[in-house]
């Protein structure tokens, strides 16, 4: 009996030890930089639905990755509400000749460990990305990039492999600058996790990450000096990103005051709801991308212009924008040049009308005859991603509308990765999806409509269009470039090489106790861009 009791005690003690070993560890206050010179002691708490996947801004792809690393690793350029690039780290940028570009950068930015941010860092980042090919968006912009060189502390010169009048803008906008003295010793930038495990993070933005609890929160603290903040010092003393996988919980937390801001764009149906809620302010942000459908021209039916036109006329775009998007979207006139790109937008291109009669006659013109039920002998498989909830809602309407024109559409949904694999393999008839940021028309046309473009889902190869895009990409005169691009857009519209449906305007909710946010377009920048966060303050 006694042995059993002592064994029991030993067992229980062992179990307790085991549990204690695995028990959560209490955090310790980090060596706070103090609030010396700071504008306030306030903490701005921001909700996001996903964890940071990768702290290396050259690899990370998810929104949280972008938001948090964007507060630490400056971009050379940002973008204004007119869709034009504007200065951030770079003060001047452009071309010296057709294959050489330059960036002049500010000299008042420093890394949080005291090292100055120089042109060397900028050149290092570009060359390292080109060499190591990290998986992020940045590398995708480097096709025509050859090398970069810091010619002085303030100036970087870039050599291109061929003339390209967009690449300086695009590299400047998409690329972060990382500290050479931290990343270089770590080896390949494609493999460096930058998870702070070797002595924390080094930032040149308004905030620096000081601690993280995966699945729950990421804490960033204000740096002493950030030249782009009002007064040179960021407002909130701390920024805490908190993870709420479920958007419902996220909204409840905002209403209860536990978080001050939701970084994810609100679901369209919640906008009105939260606009009317007390203590909550809803901020509109210009969209910089579009939702679209493309018709795979490898399919012999879809290779016919009339069939593509028939499909384009068998969609009630107004209803989609009104119901699914609750009126929070603008038509692009069925053109890839969205109204947000003010210089490029061409109001003379009009949206495909919703006209099932016209669609039917187009089908007949293409040589199809409807059966007794009014259905044409075609069947198209439309793919979309389940994670893209807005698209997932409107494809149902697309299917219903097409049925009215006698065209059968089969919906084929899948999980995002499968969907991407299908799009790359061309395993679809109709593709439905969206791009969050289509900031530069020439780059986007190159990717979307040139035969080798990585998002050429239509699989089109139109010599006239190819020629226009090539011309535009080497055209240095902006006015001429715009007129070429408008011609190209007209061609895309008339030939239905792409069916761009709308640009969604985004809405973000924050507590009315906070004000001073500086919105920039798109969900990636919105009101959580570095300038906006560092300008925010309590009322």
């Amino acid at each position, binding site marked *: 009996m006694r042995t059993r009791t002592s064994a029991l005690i030993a067992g229980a003690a062992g179990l307790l030890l085991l549990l204690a070993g695995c028990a959560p560890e209490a955090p310790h206050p980090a060596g706070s930089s103090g609030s010396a010179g700071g504008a306030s002691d306030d903490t701005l708490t921001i909700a996001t639905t996903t964890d940071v996947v990768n702290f290396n801004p050259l690899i990370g792809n998810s929104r949280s990755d972008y938001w948090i690393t964007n507060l630490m690793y400056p971009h050379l350029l940002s973008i204004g509400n007119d869709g034009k690039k504007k200065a951030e780290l770079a003060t001047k940028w452009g071309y010296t000749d057709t294959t050489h570009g330059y960036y002049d950068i500010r000299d008042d930015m420093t890394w949080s460990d005291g090292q100055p941010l120089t042109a060397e860092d900028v050149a290092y980042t570009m060359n390292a990305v080109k060499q190591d090919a990290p998986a992020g968006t940045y590398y995708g912009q480097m096709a025509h990039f050859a090398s970069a060189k810091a010619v002085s502390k303030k100036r970087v010169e870039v050599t291109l492999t061929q003339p390209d009048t967009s690449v300086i803008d695009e590299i400047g906008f998409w690329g972060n600058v990382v500290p050479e003295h931290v990343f270089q010793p770590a080896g390949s930038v494609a493999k460096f996790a930058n998870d702070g495990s070797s002595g924390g993070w080094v930032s040149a933005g308004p905030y620096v990450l000081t601690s993280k609890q995966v699945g729950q929160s990421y804490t960033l603290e204000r740096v002493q000096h950030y030249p782009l903040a009002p007064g040179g010092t960021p407002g909130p003393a701390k920024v805490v990103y908190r993870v709420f996988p479920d958007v419902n919980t*996220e909204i409840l937390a905002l209403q209860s005051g536990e978080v001050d801001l939701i970084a994810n764009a609100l679901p369209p*149906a919640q906008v009105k709801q939260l606009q009317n809620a007390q203590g909550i302010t809803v901020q509109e942000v210009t969209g910089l991308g579009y939702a679209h459908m493309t018709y795979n021209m490898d399919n012999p039916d879809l290779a016919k212009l009339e069939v593509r036109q028939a499909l384009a006329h068998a969609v009630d775009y107004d209803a989609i924008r009104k*119901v699914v998007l609750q009126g929070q979207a603008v038509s692009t006139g069925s053109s890839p040049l969205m109204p947000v790109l003010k210089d490029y937008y061409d109001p003379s291109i009009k949206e495909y009308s919703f006209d099932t009669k016209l669609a039917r006659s187009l089908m007949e013109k293409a040589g199809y005859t409807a059966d007794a039920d009014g259905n044409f002998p075609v069947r198209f498989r439309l793919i979309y991603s389940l*994670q893209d909830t807005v698209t997932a*809602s409107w494809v149902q309407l697309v299917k219903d509308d097409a049925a009215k024109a006698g065209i059968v559409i089969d*919906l084929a*949904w899948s999980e995002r990765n*499968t969907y991407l694999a299908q799009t790359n393999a061309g395993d679809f008839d109709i593709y439905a999806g969206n791009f969050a940021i289509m900031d530069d028309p020439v780059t986007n046309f190159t990717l979307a409509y040139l035969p080798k473009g990585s998002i050429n889902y239509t699989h089109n190869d139109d010599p006239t269009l190819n020629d226009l895009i090539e011309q535009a990409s080497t055209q240095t005169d902006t006015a001429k470039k715009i007129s070429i691009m408008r011609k190209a857009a007209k061609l895309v519209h008339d030939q239905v090489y792409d069916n761009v449906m709308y640009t969604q305007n985004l809405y973000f909710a924050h507590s009315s106790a906070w004000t001073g946010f500086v919105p920039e377009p798109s969900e990636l920048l919105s009101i959580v861009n570095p300038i906006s966060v560092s300008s925010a303050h309590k009322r």
Partner: protein
Amino acid sequence: MTTTPLVGDIEPIVPAAGGTARATWRSFRTEPLGLVALGVLLVLVLVAVLAPVLTRYPSGYGDHVLAPPTGAHPFGTDALGRDVLAEVVWGTQQSLLVAIASSLIAIVFGTLVAVVGAYFRRLDGIVGLVVDLVLSLPVLPLMILVAALVGPSTATIILVVAAFSWPEVTRLVRSQALTVVHLPYVDAARLMTSNPAWIIARHIVPAVKPVIVVSVVVTASRAVLSAAGLAFLGLGDPSTWSWGRILYEAQQSGAMSSAWWLTLFPSIAILALVLSATLLSIAYNDARNPRNRRR
């Protein structure tokens, strides 16, 4: 690692000659909870069958989005203005289909494995081991993994739920079957025929029938919850109405707390189905158990 009584223990009983069923029914009739549960289940089945008569199939969009319950829409409308009542009604069909189909597959497969294992003693060790191994796999995470990789659809859900439910059935049925195979009348049958299929069908399956009945109910109700859970995580069939889909769409539109009707009604439907199925199996078990009947 051997027993998981979910609905109480199922006692091994020797099938007596006829009359057991009638005695069970007589005892069952005095069980109000069981009768109510049976009634609720019947109503749900009726709703599923009569869905086309009861409501129009919810599709397209409506004018009033997220409208609270009114006379025109007793359960309110969703984020696209569709009638939630119609969605719940048509969702019943899908949810029952998933429940019945996956539990049938699991039962047939699980019972077969158990009975064959129990009859052929040499196989039994392997069956027992495999069942134990599969039972120790984390079910929900694996369901998520498979559904995401294979691609979410009704068929996927049915197969995934069935694939992870059969070992439980095998375990329950096996322990019952093992008590029967050693009984004298089975040994006698072995002497009379060399056809194992006949003995299994004639003697062993009838003996494990009560356990199967309980397993069907338990597996089916678990299937409903699993399917709803998968749908909620975005791994359901987005083209067919199911209770899980209504909840998933409510979640995606961030309306779960503000548009309470979107959350409440499908949740009640799930609760009603699972609760009544479970209560029914408990009542059946109690009614069948002579020890309970005695009182």
